């Protein structure tokens, strides 16, 4: 720990002042008054009132009034967040009423940056903020959902619509093939953004939404604001973890004043966005006869049959979610606190999927004296998640669509039913699958951070922080024994695992704030930081449990018990510095540098240096600009830097040995040999970024515009080396050889259209990004695979993860057409797809595959509006995503026409002798032409425009609520995803990435869709 040894006698003087005696005051008078809002005329509570030049102050109370003893002729300064502060002379008055004007310009808005905060006007880098107001209007379970559509250049997609499901956040495009998720920092504690480590796999089935959400344990109600750091100038202070951007999350802290008790509660109902049209029983019966060759007796008169079972109704439900939070904030001048407890319960729209969270938070700040502060925050949360397998052709949603309407959900005795034995289905009753198969994930997380801060000299502050992140999670996966119809699993299987991880971080920060001469300011930060984490897990498995009701490990067959486990650890040591220099309040310079030493890097490259520099010019502060009244703020920012991605695996640089089975004598034995070839030079993936931005404010800040263009060059991307087999066939080392370039443009416009009694403001942001893979080293291409099906290919010269397959050119109508066409299969018949012979060799084979579409949007745009009138508030957010494609794998089976599964209604238009369809192929049980192969047939336009959020609130009038002892009360009704406009034929066009894999995006394999929800809630403060 750093100790400071003062060397000047002046320190002693300071010291005595510190433990100090209040200044002796003379000629005291008492002044009081009411503080009101300049626009609404409402009284303002909690305004800081300070006697200028003295250690004396108070805050306005409940009624907006204050009382303060001051020296005669003192000046009083009134400050309140979101309002312009004002200083008034008392001039001996006994009463001084003050009107504070809202600060529409937000120029003096303070934003959180890495290891500190800054006035927005002083920024030289690129960042986006999501404020408490914006967060409040979105009653969402997960914090990351609140980021959706709020910030330019930040593309958030839900990988899985299940409650608690993971999201993918792409800040300025995808720049890595390993992970493209940003770093999250919660109140100064960095947490792993990559959820793959917590992946809850379903035995042999891997679903795309299996990764659980790293931010699940954070209660969104506790969050004050979120900052997204986008360019290297802003992120380089996070060095080797900043390549994918940084998301800073700040929780609410207490403030001096009366203790406030707030209750926030809401209840919502969630429904699936739409249903897909599949065949009813009459239609299915006819289809079955055709595909099967022989008809079932009961299907012989299809016209007499009814609609049959609607399996979508069986697996989807109206999910109710509720969220309740009690928070208490308050404190006095020396100690402030914020305490909250929350409970959230979400029933998903698919039966069997649930999420619960219990959370508690304490934030505490104590000023020992004017110079020394201590405090901390602690957040404890438990989440319980019940996951239903999806994003898999054996998933619940997928199989619900495929299950014939001829099967009932349950038999008369209440047991789950199966279709007729003649119908050959390879999967279980989907409702049974959802309810009987168990995948429970429970997690307890303790996230804490303590700090101590002391002003050593005027302007020089030392701060140290100690943060921890403790995680304990349990998982239980149970596959029941079932025997229904043609599907049976005679032996049940139970897998259970316990994981725990601990993480700590210790920081030492030294900041200096000062002036150099009259005309320039300097602010510097020096920091040292060390952090380490370790994890361990044990897992056990047994099968053959006596029944499906009791699912504890001891009940299984001991003879077939297996167990496993593992452990790991890593550490990071960092030195960093930032210098902000402001000349004449209009020339701004920022330089940052960080050295990261990481246990993940090879011994030859253990330390990386990540510098950045930026300049900004506030042209509007130039003397020559003062006459231009139209423009109140005009700033140009230019920055560049190099950051890194250290998520390269824990021990990529090491060579390990592994055991092999060998016959020794006449017995089996274990031999040991190398498992991999090491690359001791392995290091971070580096990202070189440049940004040019402009900030424009007009009409006194009523219109603000922000524009940024950027280039991000991901260089030294980690890819496996390609070695000849003569090297021994060991696992090849990762080498830093790849290169991906992202170019983009971001625009943001914010207008305050009306103030006063009717307030109206508008936010628009738009982002364009272009992604090109420039080099993959000797790795010719990277293939993204889902369920052993290659779906995407990444090659040099194209965007990452484009869909790859065949091009169709209609459907063969006659045998003559087939005879003339390139050879596809000897059994190609009319009604089969004609695939394009792209290399003109007369044969349709894998050489004829090509790129079919890009899952990453060309541009995204978001529009939000906020209206206010006499206590009513209305806000809405419209999200637009344009130019992306989706690979609809659902149709591979749902319009495959090759088996006895139920099909989409489009199958009614299938090719037959009497219906020469040109779009839907024939029904053929063996599919000799492989009509189901990956082709442009499954590629659809994924663009959509969505009314993501509407929020209507009403602030109850003061006159009313005072009678019931409330200081404020608000009721609201909120809708999420109420309207979606899209051409996409699946449930939901918002298809994220598969298990956060950067190589698989926009592939809908029966993904859990987002819900449409309607929420009513209130918050009340006592």
């Amino acid at each position, binding site marked *: 720990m750093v100790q400071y040894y003062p060397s000047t006698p002046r320190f002693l003087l300071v010291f005595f002042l510190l433990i100090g005696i209040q200044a002796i005051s003379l000629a005291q008078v008492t002044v009081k008054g009411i503080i009101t809002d300049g626009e609404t005329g409402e009284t303002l509570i909690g305004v800081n009132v300070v006697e200028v030049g003295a250690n004396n102050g108070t805050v306005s109370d409940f009624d907006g009034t204050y009382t303060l003893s001051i020296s005669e002729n003192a000046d009083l300064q009134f400050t309140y967040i979101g309002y312009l502060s004002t200083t008034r002379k008392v001039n001996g008055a006994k009463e001084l009423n003050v009107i504070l004007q809202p600060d529409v310009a937000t120029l003096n808005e303070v934003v959180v940056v890495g290891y500190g905060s800054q006035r927005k006007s002083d920024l030289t880098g690129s960042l986006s903020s999501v404020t408490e107001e914006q967060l409040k209007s979105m009653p969402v379970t997960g914090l990351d959902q609140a980021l959706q559509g709020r910030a330019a250049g930040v593309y958030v997609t839900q990988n899985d619509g299940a409650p608690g499901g993971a999201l993918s956040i792409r800040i300025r495009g995808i720049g890595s093939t390993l992970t493209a998720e940003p770093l999250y920092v919660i109140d100064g504690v960095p947490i792993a953004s990559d959820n793959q480590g917590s992946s809850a796999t379903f035995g042999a089935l891997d679903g795309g939404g299996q990764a659980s959400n790293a931010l699940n344990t954070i209660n969104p109600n506790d969050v004050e604001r979120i900052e997204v750091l986008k360019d290297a100038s802003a992120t380089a202070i996070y060095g080797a973890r900043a390549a994918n951007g940084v998301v800073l999350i700040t929780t609410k802290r207490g403030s001096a004043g009366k203790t406030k008790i707030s209750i926030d509660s809401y209840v919502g109902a969630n429904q699936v966005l739409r249903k897909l049209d599949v065949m009813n029983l009459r239609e299915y019966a006819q289809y079955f006869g055709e595909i099967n060759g022989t008809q079932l007796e009961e299907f012989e008169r299809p016209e007499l049959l009814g609609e049959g079972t609607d399996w979508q109704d069986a697996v989807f439900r109206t999910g109710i979610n509720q969220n309740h939070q009690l928070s208490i904030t308050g404190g006095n001048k020396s100690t402030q606190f914020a305490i909250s407890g929350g409970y959230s319960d979400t029933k998903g729209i698919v039966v069997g999927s649930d999420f619960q969270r219990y959370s508690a938070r304490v934030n505490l700040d104590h000023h020992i004296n004017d110079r020394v502060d201590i405090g901390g925050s602690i957040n404890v949360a438990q989440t319980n998640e019940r996951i239903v397998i999806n994003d898999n052709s054996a998933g619940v949603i997928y199989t619900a669509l495929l299950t014939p309407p001829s099967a009932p959900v349950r038999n008369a005795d209440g047991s789950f039913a199966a279709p007729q034995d003649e119908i050959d289905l390879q999967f279980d009753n989907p409702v049974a699958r959802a309810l009987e198969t168990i995948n429970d994930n429970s997690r307890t997380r303790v996230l804490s951070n303590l700090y101590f801060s002391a002003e050593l000299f005027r302007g020089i502050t030392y701060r140290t922080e100690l943060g921890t992140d403790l995680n304990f999670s349990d998982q239980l996966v149970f596959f029941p024994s079932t025997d229904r119809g043609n599907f049976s699993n005679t032996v049940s299987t139970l897998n259970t695992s316990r994981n725990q991880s601990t993480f700590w971080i210790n920081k030492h920060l030294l900041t200096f704030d000062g002036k150099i001469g009259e005309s320039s300011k300097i602010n510097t930060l020096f920091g040292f930081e060390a952090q380490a984490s370790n994890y361990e897990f044990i897992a056990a498995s047994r099968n053959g449990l006596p029944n499906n009701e009791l699912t504890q490990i001891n009940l299984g067959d001991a003879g077939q018990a297996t167990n496993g486990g593992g452990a790991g650890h890593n550490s990071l040591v960092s*030195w960093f510095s930032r210098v902000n220099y402001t000349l004449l309040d209009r020339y701004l310079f920022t330089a940052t540098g960080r050295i990261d030493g990481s246990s993940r890097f090879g011994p030859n490259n253990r330390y990386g240096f990540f510098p950045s520099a930026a300049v900004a010019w506030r042209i509007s502060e130039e003397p020559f600009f003062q006459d231009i009244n139209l423009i109140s703020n005009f700033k140009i920012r230019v920055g560049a830097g190099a950051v890194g991605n250290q998520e390269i695996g824990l021990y990529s640089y090491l060579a390990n040995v592994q055991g092999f089975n060998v016959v020794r004598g006449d017995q089996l034995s274990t031999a040991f040999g190398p498992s991999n070839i090491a690359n001791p030079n392995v290091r971070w993936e580096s990202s070189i970024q440049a940004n040019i931005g402009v900030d424009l404010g007009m009409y006194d800040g009523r219109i603000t515009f922000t524009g940024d263009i950027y280039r991000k060059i991901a260089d030294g991307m980690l890819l496996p080396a390609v070695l000849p087999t003569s090297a021994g066939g060991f696992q090849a080392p990762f080498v830093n050889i790849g290169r991906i370039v992202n170019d983009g443009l971001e625009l943001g416009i914010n207008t305050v259209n009306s103030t006063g009694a009717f307030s109206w403001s508008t936010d628009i942001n738009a982002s364009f990004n272009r992604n090109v893979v420039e080099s993959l080293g000797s790795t010719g291409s990277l293939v993204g695979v889902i369920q052993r099906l290659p779906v995407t290919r990444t090659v040099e010269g194209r965007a990452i993860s484009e869909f790859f397959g065949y091009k169709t050119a209609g459907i063969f109508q006659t045998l003559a057409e087939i005879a003339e066409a390139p050879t596809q299969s000897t059994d190609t018949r009319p009604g089969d797809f004609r695939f394009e012979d792209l290399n003109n060799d007369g044969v349709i084979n894998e050489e004829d595959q090509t790129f079919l579409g890009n899952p990453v949007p060309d541009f995204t745009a978001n529009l939000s509006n906020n209206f206010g009138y006499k206590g009513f508030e209305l806000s809405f957010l419209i999200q637009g995503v344009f130019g992306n494609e989706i690979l609809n794998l659902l149709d591979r089976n749902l319009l495959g026409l090759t088996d006895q599964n139920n099909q989409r209604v489009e199958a009614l238009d299938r090719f037959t002798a009497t219906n020469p369809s040109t779009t839907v192929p024939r029904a053929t049980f063996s599919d000799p032409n492989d009509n189901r192969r990956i082709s442009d047939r499954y590629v659809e336009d994924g663009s959509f425009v969505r009314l993501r959020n509407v929020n209507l609130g009403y602030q109850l009038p003061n006159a009313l609520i005072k009678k019931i002892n409330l200081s404020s009360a608000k009721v609201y009704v909120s809708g999420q995803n109420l309207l979606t406009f899209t051409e996409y034929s699946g449930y939901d066009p918002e298809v994220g990435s598969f298990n956060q894999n950067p190589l698989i995006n926009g592939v809908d394999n029966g993904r859990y869709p987002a819900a449409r929800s309607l929420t009513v809630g209130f918050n009340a403060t006592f």
Partner: protein
Amino acid sequence: MYKTRKYLKCAFIAALAFSLSACEDFLDKQPLDTIVEDSFYKTAQDMEKAMLAAYVPLQNLQWMGQGWRILEIPSDNTQAGGTDPDFTPIDDFSTSADNISVAEFWAIRYRAVALSNVVIFRAPLASISDEEVAALVGEAKFIRALAYFDLARVFGDVPISLEAPSLDNEVLLPRSPLAEVYALIEADLTEAAAVLPITRAGAEIGRATKGAALALHAKVELTLKNFRDAQELSAECMRLGVYSLMPNYGDNWNIATSDNNAESVFQIQHVGCGPFGTGNASQAFFAPFGQGITKGSDGWGSQIPTSPSVNNPGTTIQEAFEEGDLRLFHSIMEPAASYPNINPDEGGYNYPATGASRATINIKKYVIGGGPNTCFMSTGQNMHVIRYADVLLSFVEAAVELDGGVTVNQEALDAFNAIRSRAGLESLSIVTRDDLFQERRVEFAFECHRWFDLLRQGDVVNTMRLHGKTLDENKLLFPIPSAEIKINTELTQNEGY
């Protein structure tokens, strides 16, 4: 607590002095659940496990389990059964450089080279005695020589890798001239023979011995036409006095007597029904198709003995056996042959009088039927690599060549006639070159020697043309796998591919 102190020291020194070195300890996080290479290869036990790893490729499917695709199918002894494109083109000398069996044959032998190199590199650094180092290095060099001998005979010039696998060492190696490859093989075998034990006991049985090194070396010298050396090496092996022919030829094919018997100079060790890669897979490929001999779903008749009903009469293995040769019964299943030892619980096995469903005759060697220790593609019978009969015939071959193509050398005649009399055949008083290669053909039928015997005998193109195959001199070597050339641009392709 210790770790905390380390961190505090790091933090304290680093924060004040900005020193990087203080943090090295803190940043050195070795894996907790895997063994790092540098912490292994220390003790005698570690090195024993590392040595055993070099035997793993030999036991794997790609070495001998499917090695017959490269070593036997081109010859006039066998033809490919079925239509598997992985090896049927080899039968017609239309093998492409993309052939997967060729690529696997190449890869598994280089894997053995790499695992041998690990031992050669690591043993001197381990805490073991000089004698132990020498024995381990010698044993590893035997394995390396075995691999390179196959590579040299199949591909010609091949890259020589002498280093343990590491990025520091060059991995894109060019092909070395054949003479250099053979010089390495000779040096390795000389060193191996000098240090390896004459016999192995207990759990070490089956690992390389002095005799194995001498016998393999003799075969190498025959290939190089250094007949004097070949004669001395095989004679030295015979003088060890630890080997003898089994009384009955069939003893080598009966699982009760075949493994590590007196005739075994070097065998690949197998167990039945173990993890994949530990069993002998030959039965799966050789047993007649559709006969249910294995009691499993294998038994594919993938390699079939040549016979006059299919191939050019007068050139086939079925006709090569003299009247009364006892070896025929143990080598080829002929119509109506009866094998009471195969599946005795079912009353033995009788080969159908009209032949099996895809062939009129099938290979008998390694076909032992289903049983408690026999599973899908896995029997426990060891694979013969060098039998003592091979040592004897190497001695005879050297004598024949030294004596100008015909020998009356008594020692050679004794060795030769020992083999003939065991086969129930009359002794010869002179042995010609043709007699020698004819004897080798029937003695080692389907044991992966015939193609190399033909190469040594010479005039292969004509022999194979008479047999009914079309080929030119270029086809005597296999193509370098194309995938390998694509990655290793230093490699060149053989002529004709």
